[in-house]
């Protein structure tokens, strides 16, 4: 996929709203993507960027975060790349439903589950040099989705 737009931002929370503005603006270039799906993509990308900023903070890193947008006919793809410490997405322990005893003690753990629900496809590649999260939203409604 041709990555049409590239955005690099400092690893600072102040830039999250700018990233969301770019997602909304880029997604609206595709007239056929509904507002609801733009909201979904905006939140998913915001979550991935938040995790990237946290990952850099853990290394005290000043590196920038790279976000690539690709739009083609029937899908919008957004890739969020950091140079943080990496992690193993397979071994994440889901926090369990909020109604579980003690679950309210923990304020985190919503990011990756939300991305998984909001995006039509998600892949996370992570290694010691950093993490790349790839989010895809289909432009055509789910009923018209090809099998995958």
């Amino acid at each position, binding site marked *: 996929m041709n990555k049409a737009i590239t955005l690099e931002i400092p690893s600072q929370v102040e830039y999250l709203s700018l990233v969301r503005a770019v997602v909304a603006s880029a997604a609206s270039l595709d007239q056929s993507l509904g507002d609801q799906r733009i909201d979904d993509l905006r*939140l998913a990308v915001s979550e991935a960027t938040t995790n990237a900023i946290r990952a850099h903070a853990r290394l005290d890193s000043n590196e920038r975060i790279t976000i690539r947008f690709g739009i083609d006919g029937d899908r919008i793809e957004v890739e969020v790349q950091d140079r943080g410490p990496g992690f193993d997405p397979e071994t994440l322990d889901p926090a369990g439903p909020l109604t579980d005893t003690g679950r309210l003690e923990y*304020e985190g753990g*919503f990011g990756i589950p939300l991305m998984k629900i909001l995006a039509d496809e998600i892949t996370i590649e992570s290694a010691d040099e950093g993490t790349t999260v790839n989010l895809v939203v289909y432009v055509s409604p789910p009923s018209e989705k090809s099998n995958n």
Partner: protein
Amino acid sequence: MMLTLSHSTIGNWTIIHVAGEVDMATGPQLRQEIVRHVSEGNIHIVIDLQNVDFIDSTGLGILVGGVKRARSNGGDFRCSGLSGSLQEVFSLTGLDSVLLSVDLNQDPSTWEPLNE
């Protein structure tokens, strides 16, 4: 990007009105406001999200923390004014199961009680 916070009271409830986008940049402001109210003994809180059109996982976590803080002090923590997109996020994450919505135009005595 700033969050605008104000508050009012209805009976023994403190209503915290939030305007803006709640994310990792603005969230700490909201957490601080909630903590302050609880520490001042205002343990019945409604978070009015009518003027919030974006909330991320950090914001959801802060609301979870609010539920915990209010309840562990013998109080309660509710929300109101959810837009469609916030409603979606609340239901996708199951937050709506512990953070009940109220209608600020109705008398608090009519609000759904906590079933505990």
